[in-house]
């Protein structure tokens, strides 16, 4: 078992460690309470002397590039997740490392997907010591069972940028898989068979890593335009046959949910926004990629059309529905963090009003502001919510870690945060006395929409006032919890081992909660 230092109770009442993987960590102090001093992390100074004047940084293989970059025991290797479940590069990196008998690496992805489950082999044989990023699906279950050597660290997209910028995580080698690149290292996500729209999640990696490797299957002559990643940060360029599986990177079609229950949640959420006066000319919104969130955009579009209004900007995840709103003039700009389908990729390539963003502009909490807090409304998911409005997105009610945080924590700073969730999933109540894992503090979560009623955070008197005369089914969170328990029965408490298998970082780098080994 890893050393966790002293276990302390943090500002939201959770027991958290003060030391993780041999490094001290700071317990959560409250929203906006932790302001570190000092300067940002500084990457090494490079010199043109060490790079070819003709700009050609091509090396023959991924293995050669890793060896040239000085791959050795204990290094931190980063990858991005713009290829989602179609990523072919991350697993190859660790296959090479294992072949070179390198041990105790830290994998630092911006997110993990089911396609990364083969890495379990390298976690078992000691090639990888632990993961800092997200541990989804089988990787999450592996972690929950206490099988990872080190302690997993989960961060939001903004928290990842913050951790790199602040020097909490020092990336030794960043491997940036790119749908298009030139031999100088300029790269983008809009061209090529693996087109994924943008490469914003790799921005911090390019800026701060010691060594940067760009891997592409679509090498174009200099200049590769647009240069979403700038070659001036890049050490080596590798041409491979295939960087990703296109149909797993973006879906050819994103369809709105056919589930009547989810559609109802979406409709109720949109109605709430209308009644609360959130939908007005020039407003801004962000909705995630899940079926429910996707459909909310459709209701928004209908409402805007009916009122003759338009939104100033929408934050993506973009998809064909958001692109349609852009093209119909219902939204003036899409500020996009990732593209979910081919319509999104095409729009980003062709429409100057469809703008790529990065976790730096959108989410970084240690910056001079970010876009997330400027949004009028954000609609997010959750696995559980408790009666204090704290919410969980990473573990399920059986205690198993299954999801990453994504941009979820960062988005909570919007002017109104709404979580549409079913009251229960199969028999599992979503509204609990206490969430299994706190990922977001209740003070930032304003509205819970369920199919059987809408609960507004009592801190938001203004919202309560605005909808008090509406025909919306406004209820207390306690009443919703009681109804869920009436239907499902009162759930038993889960039992956990003391061993900490992962920690959950807040957007400022402090530890808001941890995940314990399941029994």
């Amino acid at each position: 078992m890893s050393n966790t230092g002293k276990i302390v109770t943090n500002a939201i009442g959770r027991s958290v460690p003060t030391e993780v993987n041999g490094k001290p960590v700071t317990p959560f102090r409250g929203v906006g309470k932790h302001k570190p001093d000092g300067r940002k992390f500084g990457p090494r100074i490079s010199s043109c002397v060490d790079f070819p004047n003709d700009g050609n940084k091509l090396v023959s293989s991924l293995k050669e590039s890793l060896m040239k970059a000085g791959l050795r025991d204990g290094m931190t290797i980063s990858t991005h997740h713009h290829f989602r479940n179609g990523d072919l590069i991350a697993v190859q990196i660790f296959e090479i490392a294992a072949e070179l008998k390198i041990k105790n690496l830290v994998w630092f992805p911006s997110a993990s997907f089911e396609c990364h489950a083969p890495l379990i082999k390298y976690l078992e044989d000691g090639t990888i010591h632990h993961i800092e990023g997200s541990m989804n699906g089988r990787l999450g279950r592996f972690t929950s069972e206490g099988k990872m050597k080190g302690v997993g660290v989960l961060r939001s997209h903004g928290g990842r940028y913050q951790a790199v910028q602040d020097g909490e995580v020092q990336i030794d080698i960043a491997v940036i898989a790119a749908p298009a690149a030139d031999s100088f290292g300029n790269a983008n996500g809009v061209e090529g068979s693996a087109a994924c729209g943008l490469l914003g999640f790799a921005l911090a990696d390019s800026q701060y890593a010691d060594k940067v490797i760009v891997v592409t299957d679509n090498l174009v002559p200099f200049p590769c335009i647009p240069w979403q990643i700038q070659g001036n940060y890049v050490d080596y360029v590798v041409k491979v046959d295939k960087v990703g599986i296109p149909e797993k990177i973006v879906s050819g079609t994103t369809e709105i949910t056919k589930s009547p229950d989810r559609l109802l949640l979406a409709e109720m959420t949109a109605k709430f926004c209308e009644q609360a006066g959130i939908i007005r000319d020039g407003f801004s919104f962000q909705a995630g990629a899940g079926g429910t969130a996707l459909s909310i955009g459709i209701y928004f579009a209908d409402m805007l059309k009916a009122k003759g209004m338009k939104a100033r900007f929408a934050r993506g995840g973009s998809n064909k529905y958001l692109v349609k709103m852009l093209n119909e003039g219902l939204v003036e700009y899409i500020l996009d963090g990732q593209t979910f389908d081919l319509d999104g990729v095409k729009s980003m390539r062709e429409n100057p009003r469809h703008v790529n963003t990065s976790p730096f502009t959108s989410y970084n909490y240690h910056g001079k502001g970010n876009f997330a807090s400027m949004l009028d409304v954000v609609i997010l998911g959750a696995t559980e919510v408790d009666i204090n409005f704290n919410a969980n997105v990473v573990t399920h009610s059986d205690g198993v870690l299954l999801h990453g945080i994504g941009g979820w924590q960062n988005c909570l700073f919007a002017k109104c945060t709404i979580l549409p969730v079913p009251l229960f999933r199969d028999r599992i109540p979503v509204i609990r006395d206490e969430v299994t894992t706190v990922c977001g503090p209740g003070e930032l979560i304003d509205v819970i929409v369920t199919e059987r009623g809408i609960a507004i955070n009592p801190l938001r008197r203004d919202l309560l006032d605005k909808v008090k005369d509406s025909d919306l089914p406004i209820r207390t969170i306690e009443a919703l919890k009681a109804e869920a328990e009436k239907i499902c029965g009162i759930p038993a408490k889960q039992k956990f081992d003391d061993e900490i298998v992962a920690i959950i970082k807040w957007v400022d780098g402090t530890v808001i909660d941890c995940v314990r080994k399941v029994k």
Partner: protein
Amino acid sequence: MNQTVASAGNNGDKDRSDCLVTIELSKSGGLKIDLQSKVQVLYGESIEALSKEVLNFFDIRHATLTVIDKGALPFVLAARIEAAIKQVISTEKEYLLDMISENRYSTQRNKPRISRLYLPGNTPSLMLNAGVHKPDGIILDLEDAVAITKKSEARILVRNALRSHDFLGVERMVRINQIPMGLDDLEFVVPHHVNVVLIPKCESAEHIQQVNDRISAIKRRSDLKDPIWLMPIIESAMGVMKALKIAQAADNVVAMAIGLEDYTADIGVNRTKEGRESLFARCQIINACKAAGIQAIDSVFSDVGDMDALKENVLQSKALGFEGMGCIHPRQIKVIHENFAPNEVEIEKAKKIVLAFEDAAKKGLGVVSLGTKMIDAPVVKRAQHTIDSSISVGKLNKNWRNEIKD
């Protein structure tokens, strides 16, 4: 019974909120519960306790009960366990969960029945949120939606749903099987606060009589007072020709529906979108209903993906004189409500007519006129009907007269 092993429930890839229960009787060894549940951590102990309680209730002392659970609610678990048990022992007993207070309501003869949502009687996942979509009624279907081998377990599940699952105040209907099989279904629904019984493939007043005889017997036996309404479904040429007799067969017949899939098959034609082949049948049903003073209900629209075509269908149906339609997907409910309901123009016109009539009555005038137009009594009656149905679907405030004066 010689059988010692039996199963009930579902465990297919797509099944949710259900469970597959297998019982194996043994001579000794006591009760063994083998549980594999998606919700083991949260509800494992309570599922085991419920399992033992049901086994004890049926005096089973030695058996292995295997429960593969995908998040079934207690009323589903209990139904599945009982259904498995009843295949290996003979018993008249019923394991009844408490009748929840929310389900002890009865309904009015003339309440609106614009939408009624069909729910397959053996598929618990579709029942759970049926009420939140706010249809006028839900139909727990024991007939076509249940495979012949699953009829017995569906009866028990429907019974438990009627007692224990909150459908949030919507009218609770059950479609029984065709007569005579459907008569035995009544034993599982009549004592449990069902509001309406749908009688499929109804072809004669006799069918209504048989159903009512059985209902009366059960009500007497169980000392039940609340009304149970009937909605015969006409699905054959014979049914169409006997429509008026069926509509008038008993006082508790409140609505009559047409089922076009079976009807078109019966007369040997294809069912088309335009529906010319069934125009006579539909008009006959409507006229029979109006003559008998009951509601005329149209067939379901089966393309659940095409909301535009559904809307067309509803508008045609309304124009013919139907007052409601079945739904096979919750998404259809809203479209059906919006398009059966009077539109703004109709409501405004109706308001003016009703006000003019009331004004004339106050002044003691024998003739009602609106502008330069004379208004006949039937026009006033239709306007009043428009006002009433607008209020009932929430398109008009019941104090609309005050709103105008303000």
